[in-house]
């Protein structure tokens, strides 16, 4: 009798506790590119560094970047770190990995998508690798639950894009991502700290929606290819020679001091600084979005 009682209690406890401490994030999550649609789709304008809190080194790195750099065979597939989950256009496929012996979730996985490797969020309390351990595009991620929010901290990434126009993260970057589920919406709130290129953390928040249809992870893998860059050549711009600095001032009339970024450009008070230098640009003619009836999809 007592044995049965203990068994029953143990079974109830065993089934209840993990459920009480976690939310089921598994499923297919469709990306809603309603914000930063151009940046996440076709890609940002060259030399658009608005809102980027980078330091002088980060800005210099970005200004030296030529988009042709990713046409080098060895760099076609580079730069897509886990941060690409926040700035790319793709949805998310998530599932939990279960220990076959205990039935406990030992990891949450955000499946890969083309250029971005899978993010395995270890929940089993394993130690983080030594700071001298090899880095990879996937990096290493540990997760914890707090208030039913899954928080994942990623280290050991290779250098990658912060924005897909040459704003870079170093291999010292630390990415923190909160997974917040509200009904059929999944909000990801990420911050990125980088002692090499940023003066303060950079924040991005995105919302995904539960997809009715199965979404498969993976997709066509990134395949390196020859896109015509001569061997032993690294496309770049020398300091002071970037020819694309006037893209934002020309297209959107955004003052160049805003386009060049820096932490202050992300704060409301910065508007006062550029108010007298700004005039509204003429009617949009390219990359304008709008209703499908106008022949311009979202």
């Amino acid at each position, binding site marked *: 009798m007592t044995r049965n009682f203990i068994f029953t209690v143990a079974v109830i406890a065993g089934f209840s506790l993990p459920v009480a401490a976690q939310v089921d994030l598994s499923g297919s999550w469709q990306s809603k590119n309603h914000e930063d649609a151009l940046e996440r789709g076709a890609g940002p304008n060259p030399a658009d560094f608005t809102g980027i809190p980078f330091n002088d080194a980060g800005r210099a790195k970005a200004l030296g970047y030529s988009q042709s750099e990713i046409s080098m065979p060895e760099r076609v597939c580079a730069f897509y770190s886990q941060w690409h989950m926040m700035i790319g256009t793709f949805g998310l496929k998530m599932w939990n990995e279960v220990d076959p012996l205990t039935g406990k979730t030992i990891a949450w996985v955000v499946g890969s998508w083309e250029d971005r490797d899978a993010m395995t969020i270890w929940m089993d309390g394993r130690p983080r690798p030594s700071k001298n351990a090899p880095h990879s595009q996937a990096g290493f991620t540990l997760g914890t639950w707090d208030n039913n*929010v899954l928080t994942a901290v990623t280290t050991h990434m290779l250098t990658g894009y912060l924005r897909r126009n040459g704003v870079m993260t170093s291999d010292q970057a630390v990415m923190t991502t909160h997974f917040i589920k509200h009904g059929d919406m999944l909000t990801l709130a990420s911050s990125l700290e980088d002692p090499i290129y940023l003066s303060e*953390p950079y924040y991005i928040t995105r919302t995904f929606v539960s997809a009715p249809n199965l979404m498969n992870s993976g997709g066509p893998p990134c395949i390196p290819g020859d896109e015509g860059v001569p061997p032993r050549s690294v496309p770049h711009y020398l300091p002071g020679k970037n020819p694309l600095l006037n893209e934002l001032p020309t297209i959107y009339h955004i003052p160049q001091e805003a386009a060049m970024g820096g932490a202050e450009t992300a704060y409301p008070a910065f508007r006062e600084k550029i108010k007298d230098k700004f005039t509204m640009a003429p009617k949009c003619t390219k990359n304008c979005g709008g209703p499908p009836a106008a022949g311009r999809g979202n």
Partner: protein
Amino acid sequence: MKNRIAIGVCVVMASCLPLMAQGRGGRGGGGGTPKSAAPYDLTGYWISIVDEDWRFRMVMPPPGDYMGVPMTAEAGRVAAAWDPAKDEASGDVCKAYGAASLLRQPGILHISWQDDNTLKVEMDTGKQTRLFHFGNFKAPSGPASLQGDSVASWETAGVRSLKVDTSNLKAGYLRKNGVPYSENAKVEEYYDVLKEPHGETMLVVTTSVTDPQYLSQPFIVTSHFKKQPSDAGWNPQACSAKW
């Protein structure tokens, strides 16, 4: 011996149960007023960090730039007729400061409790005030307004969060260049507070706007704010149709 084991198991279970209950409700699941039942502190000053949709928020976007908004054809026609000078002439300079888009404006939020059942959200940009009513709030019958009627509740099943549903809105703009929402629009919001490992406290607001007239699907954006230690920088500014 068997009794001691049984008692031991019961003690362990008893110590676990409150944790289980907390996961499903925490403070928000208890009694008291909405103010006393708040699962976290939303009050204080929060500054918006504008590193998304920068060119739509920090400066005036050009006419016809609707990138990312799932507009209907009718919305396209209305937006094409946008004329800020006309809005100024008619006194409608606050159309981009309504509940559906206010938090996309760069500015500082001041959140406080007006009373035990009402959370007040003020924004310096546009000098706007939203009131989130908890409990059995019944909106007084009256004309639609810029900030509408907002019904709030503490979500306790899952992520403990503030949920706000807003309706009875006066028509306005989702973006300052005339992307419209109608008086039939409804706004669903979640307010989450996050502790960052580097010490910052962040407020993340997930906003879903539904409008069968002007949106082909819910328009979903997420805005983030950083907690401020004081009211430094609080700078009330009137609405503007041109900036």
